[in-house]
């Protein structure tokens, strides 16, 4: 059975699903202008959670309303409430206080916040003790650890001076509590002034006002608008903290360093980019690696220059995948391409590492070979680093096959006369041997080739009619 046929069955099966009509509530929300905070419907869950909340109220007789389905609504500033402090990690909670800093209420702002509140006794505690208890629960619950150690503190109070004092006081408290748990903490703190736009942003993305404010501030400090709100809104606070390292955010105070232990590190990211470009650190200049975010994925932005050509890479922070690659040569128009579409626009000088595998933190000695490949268009896919070492190209032959040459070999073998058709090419490292995996379609037939980069041999190929 052909792949396309299976996909059609799936498509048709899901296409037959019965879908309910759009609710009047949503249609009515469309006409509201200017936008008001959304009334989250949650239909069945709303009812279930309401019942659950009523039971909780009955049992404990308290005023706590851990009503998750209403987390997106503005904080309920009761008449006595003077200040609202929110803590964001992944769990998000808010603490309402009166003028005497008596804790009136602690609310969960998301599901993980619910889990933390369930384990935290905050009643009759001071603000500092409440923060201690919450942070303690977050460490115990694994939300704060050596690999994710950042907390965002947001103060909602009209008095800027008081808010700043509180930011410092609570930062000390959080850092101290985490130190007691043998975790080196990091804190971002800010004062937030609510506005309609901020509320709409928080509502639309299901995040706290504090996180929405932080994301908006990061975007405001990004004049080139290289990021979007939705891509940053999904990141945990630790990742946002890493992104703020090189950004001046006057309204946000930072203490400590966000943990990088969950990620591959700048050196491996740099090595991955250099390996993709078949260059070495010795051969390039202006080498830099900084944190960045691409479509909700934390990554390293690696930049370097080689012979008047500037290279820019985005490398996945967790697995080393090349997410994006650009290069711009002097006196040539800029080419911005995805890793699936890297185009070689000029004869390229290729440096070939002589070792099959080198540690990620070291660069192998190189020999330099100048390719005389004519200017052509080459399409390549991303390279993934899944181990702790960066595997470099094996130079067992005098001249390895380039991706463009592999492309021509495959197209000629398939008797495709049009050499300009789109071909997806991925490089694979199989036991130290570099191979090109090529896929293309021509006249309703899907072709797949595996070509040895050392000598151009076709190691395997298949063709399947796409009917």
């Amino acid at each position, binding site marked *: *059975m052909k792949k396309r046929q299976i996909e059609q069955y799936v498509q048709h*099966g899901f296409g*037959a699903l019965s879908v309910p009509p759009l609710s009047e509530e*949503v249609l009515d929300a*469309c006409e509201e202008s200017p936008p008001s905070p959304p009334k989250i419907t949650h239909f069945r869950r709303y009812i279930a959670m309401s019942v659950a909340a009523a039971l909780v109220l009955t049992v404990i007789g308290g005023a706590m309303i851990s009503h998750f389905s209403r987390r997106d609504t503005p904080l309920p500033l009761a008449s006595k409430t003077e200040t609202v402090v929110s803590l964001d990690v992944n769990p998000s909670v808010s603490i309402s206080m009166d003028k005497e800093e008596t804790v009136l209420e602690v609310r969960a702002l*998301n599901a993980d916040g619910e889990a933390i509140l369930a384990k935290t006794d905050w009643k009759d505690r001071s603000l500092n003790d409440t923060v201690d208890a919450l942070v303690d629960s977050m460490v115990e619950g694994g939300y704060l650890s050596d690999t994710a150690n950042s907390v965002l503190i947001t103060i909602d109070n009209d008095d800027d001076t008081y808010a700043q004092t509180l930011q410092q006081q609570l930062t000390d408290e959080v850092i101290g509590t985490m130190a007691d748990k043998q975790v080196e903490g990091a804190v971002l703190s800010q004062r937030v002034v609510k506005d309609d736009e901020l509320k709409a942003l928080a509502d639309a993305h299901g995040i706290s006002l504090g996180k929405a404010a932080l994301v908006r501030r990061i975007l405001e400090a990004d004049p080139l608008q290289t990021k979007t709100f*939705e891509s940053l809104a999904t990141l945990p606070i630790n990742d946002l903290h890493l992104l703020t390292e090189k950004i001046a955010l006057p309204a946000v105070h930072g203490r400590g360093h966000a943990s990088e232990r969950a990620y591959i590190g700048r050196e491996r990211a740099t090595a991955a980019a250099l390996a993709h470009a078949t260059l070495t650190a010795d051969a390039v200049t202006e080498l830099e690696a900084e944190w960045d975010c691409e*479509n909700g994925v934390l990554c390293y932005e690696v930049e370097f220059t080689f012979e008047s050509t500037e290279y820019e890479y985005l490398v996945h922070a967790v697995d080393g995948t090349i997410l994006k690659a650009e290069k711009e040569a002097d006196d040539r128009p800029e080419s911005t391409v995805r890793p699936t579409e890297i185009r070689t626009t000029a004869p390229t000088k290729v440096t070939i590492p002589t070792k099959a595998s080198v540690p990620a933190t070291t660069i192998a000695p190189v020999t330099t070979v100048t390719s005389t490949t004519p200017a052509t268009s080459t399409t390549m896919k991303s390279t*993934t680093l899944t181990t702790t070492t960066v595997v470099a190209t094996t130079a067992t032959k005098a001249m390895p096959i380039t991706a463009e040459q592999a492309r021509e070999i495959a197209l000629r073998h398939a008797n495709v006369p049009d050499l300009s058709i789109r071909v997806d090419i991925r490089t694979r490292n199989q036991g130290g041997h570099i191979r090109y995996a090529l896929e293309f379609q021509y006249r309703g037939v899907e072709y797949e080739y595996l070509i040895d980069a050392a000598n151009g041999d076709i190691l395997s190929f298949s063709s399947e009619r796409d009917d």
Partner: protein
Amino acid sequence: MLTVYLTSVANSTASPDLDDLLDRVRQGDRDALQRLYEAISKEVYGYALSVVQNEHDAQDVLQDSFLSIVHGTKTYRPQGKAKAWIYTIVHNRCVQVLRTRQKTTPLSEEDEQGWIDDRIPCTTEDRLALSACMNRLSDEERQIVVLHAVSGFRHREIAQILHLALPTVLSKYSRALKKLRVILEKGDTA
């Protein structure tokens, strides 16, 4: 008939300019919202169902997502990536549902029977493919298959929506199709 139907599905999801519809929704145009819903609700619902695996939760996700979309249009900047933006919202809603749910209720054949709209022609193979996706694939495999085969996303786009590495998406998709091929050729999901 199959070809005709698939063509109509493809056209219904691809034709409208989503950025234009979102802009009109931002201005309070109910008709535009209705058109947007008609254009993508089926595939969005299919994706939500593939994630939360519960008809009622999927309906909640669908309605909640559209409410978020309505409010999100106030800050949405058209970049030609409207569909990816919409799916990010839907995905986040699904994740929230899964977080709040204590346990997953196992699916039954009766559940699946109720999902099908009887007015839409659906072959035995179509039902088998739907059932196999829901019951025999891993969570990630199922989501990747639906995003590619039903929603029409490229694997690179799926990697971004699901926050997975591209090679992971490719390998899981390949593995999922092999499973589906075996099931469809045998003709049962047992």
